[in-house]
């Protein structure tokens, strides 16, 4: 019993000189601080990636524009994609996982705190390495410096012959380095969840966020590594004269595609599953009901993880696979929509019969539900491979995946920010600014990404620095670009909210949302040791049991 209780020494809260504080942040192994480091660094990269997007949109505002040269444009879309996936989405989700998982399972930290810190700094270093390419690299024949082969760096475009200089290598090394960081974090998450749960927290009593991060971490182990392997092969080709993807020597460009998408498809599920986790925690609290169908939600997530490993070649429908292969991947891709759809129904089932509070986290969650539904349906359209022979490599695909990433992932991240910011900082974010953020972003998002489907249907391919007039794409692209700027303004409102509320926001207290998981049982922000006494739980909603002793969940489980 004595090992479960910590005596707090007095006088621990004097102000420190800023150098000390800075040093503390640099050398921290505390999962909460590392979580915040991940989140803040991701927000910085989000700003940079967003600027790259705006440059793309200005260039595409009308046909035959020359705001930037083709060389710069090609660098912009390569860097935008690479940054957003590897240095915004993955780190920010790892950051939330880092912060929340130990708190939700009643642990004092992650299983391997130093590995945790190491993984973060690897990831951050990877981002810096990628951007150093603007100074250090040199690209496609006649081109500039940052990588410009697209974020997939398809063979043979990534080979020495077509990408002389080092820009491609910055891409490869940055991702290799941050990939190892990701694997480290995944190992940490798995070990933490399997070994450090507090007494009473059986696997079937873990919050869904914990379950989903466990599944995500398992997928990271199997998904990131194929990319690392392929990148090592690419480096061997480029520097040791290897022939893995050298078509002149019998190598196969298609093999790169297979390896890349064996990574690439599970990767997008790695990104969305933590967002499902946020929704599964936030929607119940603001609908005032438990999640509908907890066991099915777990099963569906595991099912998605397995099936998603078998769908990768739907990114390759146009490369000329035979009809049996195309049919197989059509079937598996459509099949993975079933457990995904089940989750949407379960969230609606959670809202059904509830008493919804339309605070900002819930606004973003409802937006998520609406948009993720549409994104999933456009995915089903492209699962039908003949339809994909038209839609692939066009702006329809770009619209689809931005619908998932911005309309799904980013919306759920905004919900998570508004929900857990009080816990992390002790202050509430402004509801007024939050609503401005939500509505502005919603309008900008739909203006851009709803309309973006149409140029795809009208034959506009992706990754083009300009286009011909008379194809009917001009006005549509102008509208898309305007929407992008509206989204940028909304992001500025969000950042303003984050900063202003840090100093002027209402004090949050332990449990501002009347929620039910363990992180709301301690102070906001939590003390370094998290729990003075390690809690014991008897159900999935330990705080509900405490608040409603007449009708605890433990009676029903």
């Amino acid at each position, binding site marked *: 019993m004595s090992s479960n209780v910590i005596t707090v020494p007095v006088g621990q809260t004097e102000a420190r000189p800023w150098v000390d504080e800075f040093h503390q942040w640099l050398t921290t192994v505390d999962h909460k601080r590392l979580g915040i480091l991940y989140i803040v660094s991701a927000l910085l990269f989000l700003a940079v990636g967003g600027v790259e997007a705006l440059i793309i949109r200005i260039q595409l505002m009308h046909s035959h524009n020359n705001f930037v040269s083709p060389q710069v444009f090609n660098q912009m879309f390569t860097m935008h994609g690479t940054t957003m996936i590897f240095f915004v989405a993955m780190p920010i989700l790892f950051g939330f996982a880092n912060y929340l998982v130990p708190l939700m399972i009643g642990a004092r930290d992650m299983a391997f705190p130093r590995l945790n810190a190491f993984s973060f700094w690897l990831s951050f270093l990877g981002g810096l390495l990628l951007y150093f390419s603007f100074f250090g690299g040199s690209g496609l024949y006649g081109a500039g410096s940052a990588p410009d082969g697209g974020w997939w760096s398809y063979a043979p475009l990534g080979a020495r012959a077509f990408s002389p200089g080092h820009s491609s290598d910055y891409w490869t090394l940055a991702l290799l380095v941050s990939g190892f960081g990701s694997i480290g974090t995944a190992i940490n998450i798995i070990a933490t969840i399997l070994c450090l749960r507090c007494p009473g927290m059986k696997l079937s009593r873990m919050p869904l966020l914990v379950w989903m991060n466990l599944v995500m971490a398992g997928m990271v182990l199997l998904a990131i590594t194929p990319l690392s392997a392929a990148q090592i092969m690419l480096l061997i080709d480029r520097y040791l004269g290897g022939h893995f993807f050298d078509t002149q020597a019998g190598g196969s460009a298609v093999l790169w595609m297979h390896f890349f998408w064996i990574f690439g498809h599970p990767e997008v599920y790695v990104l969305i599953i933590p967002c499902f986790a946020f929704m599964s925690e936030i929607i119940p609290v603001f609908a005032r009901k438990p999640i509908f169908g907890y066991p099915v939600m777990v099963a569906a997530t595991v099912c998605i993880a397995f099936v998603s490993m078998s769908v990768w070649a739907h990114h390759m429908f146009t490369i000329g696979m*035979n009809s049996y292969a195309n049919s197989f991947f059509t079937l598996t891709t459509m099949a993975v929509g079933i457990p995904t759809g089940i989750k949407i129904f379960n969230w609606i089932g959670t809202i059904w019969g509830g008493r919804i509070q339309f605070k900002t986290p819930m606004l973003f969650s409802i937006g998520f539900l609406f948009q993720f539904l549409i994104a999933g349906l456009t995915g089903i359209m492209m699962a039908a491979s003949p339809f994909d022979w038209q839609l692939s490599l066009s702006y329809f695909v770009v619209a689809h995946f931005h619908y998932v990433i911005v309309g799904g992932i980013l919306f759920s991240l905004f919900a998570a920010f508004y929900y857990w910011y009080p816990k992390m900082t002790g202050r509430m974010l402004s509801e007024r600014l939050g609503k401005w953020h939500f509505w502005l972003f919603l309008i900008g998002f739909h203006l851009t990404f709803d309309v973006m489907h149409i140029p795809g249907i009208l034959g506009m391919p992706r990754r083009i620095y300009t286009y011909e007039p008379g194809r009917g794409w001009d006005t549509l692209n102008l509208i898309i670009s305007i929407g992008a700027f509206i989204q940028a303004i909304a992001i500025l409102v969000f950042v303003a909210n984050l900063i202003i509320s840090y100093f002027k926001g209402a004090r949050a207290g332990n449990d501002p949302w009347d929620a039910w998981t363990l992180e709301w049982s301690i102070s906001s922000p939590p003390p370094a040791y998290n729990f003075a006494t390690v809690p014991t739980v008897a159900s999935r909603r330990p705080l509900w049991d405490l608040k409603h002793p007449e009708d605890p969940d433990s009676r029903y489980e």
Partner: protein
Amino acid sequence: MSMLKMKSSTLRFLAQTIVLLFWSAMGVWASEPKDSSPHGTNIFAPASTPAKAIADLSVFVLVITGIIFAVVFALLVYSVVKFRGRAVDAGREPAQVYGSTQIELAWTIVPTLIVVVLFLATARVIHAIEDAPEPAGAVEVTVIGHQYWWEFRYPGLGIVTANELHIPVSDPSHPTPTFLQLLSADTDHSFWVPELAGKTDLIPNHPNRMWMEPQRTGVFLGQCAQYCGIQHAKMLIRISVDGPEEFASWVRAQKRPALEVASATAGRRVFESNACMNCHAVGGTQADGRFGPDLSHLMSRATIAAGAAENTHDNLRLWIQNPSAIKPGSLMPAMKLSDADLDAVVTYMETLH
């Protein structure tokens, strides 16, 4: 307070409905065929058998996903509006429902059935397009993708041209589809002419095959769809679907060696003594380079530089003088010809009908 909540959710409902209507309207507007010559690039305005099969399947898929959307959207909106929290309920929690096995089964089985139906419909079309046999009357074209232009060879007809393809319209009673073999000389490309067929990639060391069976004459546009380098955006395709007589006369004209015109002799000498002939071929002369487009019948094409510019005297002159002015990053070097030589070469080019 409850007024605000109601306003918020009703506002959202209205916003989402407006978005829905807007999207539908754009979809309808977008699918109207454009009345212009050449044809547009609308995947829902198919003019060829495979494109039509795809469009038909796509409409079927759209209808089914549209129904799913309508149902789920309605459920979502209903639940958000009906179950909004009211001030009078403050402090009381609603019934805590944990789940329902029957409902879970229902919404697992129904989507599974939908997937089975969609899959079967799709598999039929996949097979019909990919495993279509090549009839006797088919025209065969070998397409070789280059950075940043298209090489077209007709092995059966002995023709070599570039960037602009001529194929015969196909009469249903006596079909003459065009079967294309897709190869690449350097990196990955993709051949996409939306109104004639779905796209297929050109990958080095990985030959592909596709076919088109146009049912209407006219000019159809497309472009490269797989990022292939700096000028990926300017690798345009122009397909002229000709009636039987026009096609026959085009073939005859293309099979002829290049015309020899007296006024062009000076230019031809410049062409052959500079490095031009290392890259370009002109039928019937010693120029037989394959790195760049075949120029034997350059003047039969409407555009130059794979659609980057119209085939006019000024553009031609500018292109030869400095390709980067029109297509920066193009692999054709500026030949640094003197003005006199440049004019001579242009004159020569303009005789190559």
